[in-house]
């Protein structure tokens, strides 16, 4: 058997030259007449080491990275195919502390399997959750998800079991399962990693949801910024259909479920579930009033289970190992694990799947090793463009839904963006308003117009003389209150979070002494 070389095929690794590395390995092997099998995988999520290639040696996966195409001949000279020593050698990939200290449940197969190989997926424990789900009644499947304590990982944190039960209990001739893959928050990439590195886990999760609710049609609403995810998902769906894991008779159970990927068109608001439904129906992505909730009246007015990619991808292991197993991870009302996405100005950016409760400080310093620039850390934004900016003094906050909310922030989709001391928080606050103005669907006046007025007021605070600032500040707070209370969805409702937190923790950037908030 020829030795296998694993080269990531994830967008992030490819953006750093992984394809060139794979090509160089192929041509170098040919030149040296060495038999080699190149397997393209997802990413392990250790992005500062990408492209990280791996070889198998005495049952271990030995890693080398960050590699470049130019370095490939030297890797061959060092006999990396058989674990030879080289400047880039990282040893056993599973023993790299960044990876070893994680609790990988949902992301267990990432970077290990060939994403479009169904055999590989099954060999690594895939489809055991679905198998068990088919042996249970729909009520029992929903019960497992409820017991697990799984909450929506897209940002809202709504208990998945409650959504599922509602859809199950609503009678209708047609029900849907929709995966929200419109991962628009800056600093987040967990959905993309799943779709590119282990798409079958999403497909399996959606199939379980369909069986639980009695849905026969599913959609993955994918943002257009992820063209590679589309290619991988479509290849995976075809493979699943060909083997009877999707289609008219799943696993020979007589149950039916078909799945289609729909690509968005660059509107951040379509990550909001009702705007996404409108878009799937071929309309403008305008937010809907709730109630009725989508679990009762969703896509095309039918009951629909709508969950984020990571939420659905967490379902197979919950069914396989049981809700109680999953619930054992985490703290308080935040159960299970969360994929933390560490990005921005940090030395070791990447994906960290951990039980809820780890502190921001541990994430940023123990995992991330501080700022990439080497300058002092000044602010972190947690939870995407609608998340709060926290100063260094708040880094002991535990990463969980309630703790973030208690400090005027949110956990969102689990992204953390680190900034060094060059950041200007007034500018970031201005950007938050600007982004809201750009992406508002326009339905609610406070969001549509308030965001533009917000930019103007911040400009005036920055330009104003000391005596005039107090009035403008009051205006900004009042505007933020109106947006919070007067917007239907999270875009208008939460844009004030980054603005108010910037003002509260970094008043000097607005030319103010510490102010009361």
């Amino acid at each position, binding site marked *: 058997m020829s030795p296998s070389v694993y080269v990531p095929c994830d967008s992030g690794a490819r953006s750093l030259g992984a394809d060139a590395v794979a090509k160089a390995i192929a041509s170098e092997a040919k030149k040296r007449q060495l038999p080699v099998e190149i397997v393209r995988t997802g990413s392990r999520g250790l992005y500062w080491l990408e492209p990280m290639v791996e070889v198998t040696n005495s049952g271990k996966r030995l890693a080398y990275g960050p590699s470049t195409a130019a370095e490939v001949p030297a890797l061959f000279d060092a006999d990396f195919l058989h674990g030879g020593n080289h400047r880039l050698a990282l040893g056993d990939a599973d023993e790299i502390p960044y990876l070893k200290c994680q609790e990988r449940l949902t992301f267990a197969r990432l970077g290990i399997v060939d994403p479009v190989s169904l055999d590989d997926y099954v060999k690594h424990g895939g489809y055991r959750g679905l198998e068990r789900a088919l042996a249970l009644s729909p009520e029992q499947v929903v019960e497992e998800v409820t017991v697990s304590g799984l909450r929506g990982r897209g940002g809202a944190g709504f208990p998945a079991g409650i959504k599922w039960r509602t859809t199950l209990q609503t009678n209708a001739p047609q029900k849907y399962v929709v995966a929200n893959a419109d991962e628009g928050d800056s600093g987040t990439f967990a959905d993309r990693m799943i779709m590119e590195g282990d798409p079958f886990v999403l497909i399996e999760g959606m199939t379980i949801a369909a069986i639980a609710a009695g849905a026969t049609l599913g959609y993955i609403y994918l943002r257009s910024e992820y063209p590679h995810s589309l290619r991988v998902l479509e290849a995976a769906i075809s493979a699943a259909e060909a083997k009877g894991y999707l289609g008219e008779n799943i696993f020979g159970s007589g149950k039916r479920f078909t799945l289609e990927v729909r690509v*968005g068109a660059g509107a951040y608001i379509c990550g909001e579930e009702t705007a996404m439904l409108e878009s799937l129906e071929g309309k403008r992505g305008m937010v809907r009033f709730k109630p009725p909730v989508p679990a009762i009246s969703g896509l095309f007015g039918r009951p629909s289970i709508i969950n984020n990619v990571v939420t659905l991808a967490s379902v197979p292991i919950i069914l396989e190992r049981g809700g109680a197993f999953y619930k054992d991870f985490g703290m308080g009302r935040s159960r299970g694990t969360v994929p933390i996405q560490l990005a921005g100005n940090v030395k070791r950016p990447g994906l960290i799947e951990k039980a809820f409760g780890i502190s921001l400080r541990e994430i940023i310093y123990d995992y991330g090793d501080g700022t990439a620039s080497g300058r002092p850390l000044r602010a972190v934004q947690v939870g995407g463009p609608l998340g709060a900016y926290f100063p260094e003094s708040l880094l002991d906050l535990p990463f969980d839904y309630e703790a973030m909310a208690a400090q005027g922030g949110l956990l969102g989709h689990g992204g953390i963006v680190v900034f060094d001391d060059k950041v200007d928080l007034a500018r*970031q606050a201005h950007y938050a308003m600007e982004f809201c103005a750009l992406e508002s669907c326009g339905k609610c006046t406070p969001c549509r117009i308030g965001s533009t007025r917000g930019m103007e007021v911040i400009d005036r605070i920055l330009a104003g003389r000391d005596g005039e600032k107090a009035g403008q500040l009051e205006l900004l707070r009042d505007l933020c209150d109106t947006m919070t209370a007067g917007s239907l969805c999270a875009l208008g409702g939460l844009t004030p979070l980054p603005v108010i937190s910037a003002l509260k923790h970094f008043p000097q950037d607005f030319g103010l002494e510490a102010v009361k908030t």
Partner: protein
Amino acid sequence: MTTETQWTTLNLGPQRQPSLMNHQHSWDRTVVESIAHALKDRPGALMPILRRIQDEMGWVPRDSVPMLAEILNLSRAEVHGVLTFYHDFRHEPPGRNVVKVCRAESCQAMGGEALAEHVKRRLGCEFGATRADGAFTLEPVYCLGNCACSPAVVINGELLGRVTPDRFDAAVATLDRNNR
């Protein structure tokens, strides 16, 4: 021996790029018509239709609105409303090369603003505009999901991470000389 198929199964070649070499606003009605007819029976058909027109032609002519409205039995206002809602749908043909620069927070934290200024100077083009000679269209994008490799840029569909001004210039230099 090396099995090329192992990693070519995912079609790793460059993404299909719109073949828009002329910069006149002429367009082929039959392309739009055949896309619309092929997809019109799918649920929520307007979005997949606009999406495919955009992907194949690189833009969606406003003049196609009446045709789409008729085929889908929608009002022109409805089609116009959808067409103008989404950032992806261009109303004019793009330049021969399309460059997108991420302007979102993670890239900002890694020098994205300075990179954006460099790109504007290098291409001689503002965001949201096409250079007068039609060589480049420069667009902002708000997160490419490559935040762990910030700052990120897309050149003709190819995603680049950890981009420095030098790396950007090198990538532009590899573009077909005739198209630059």
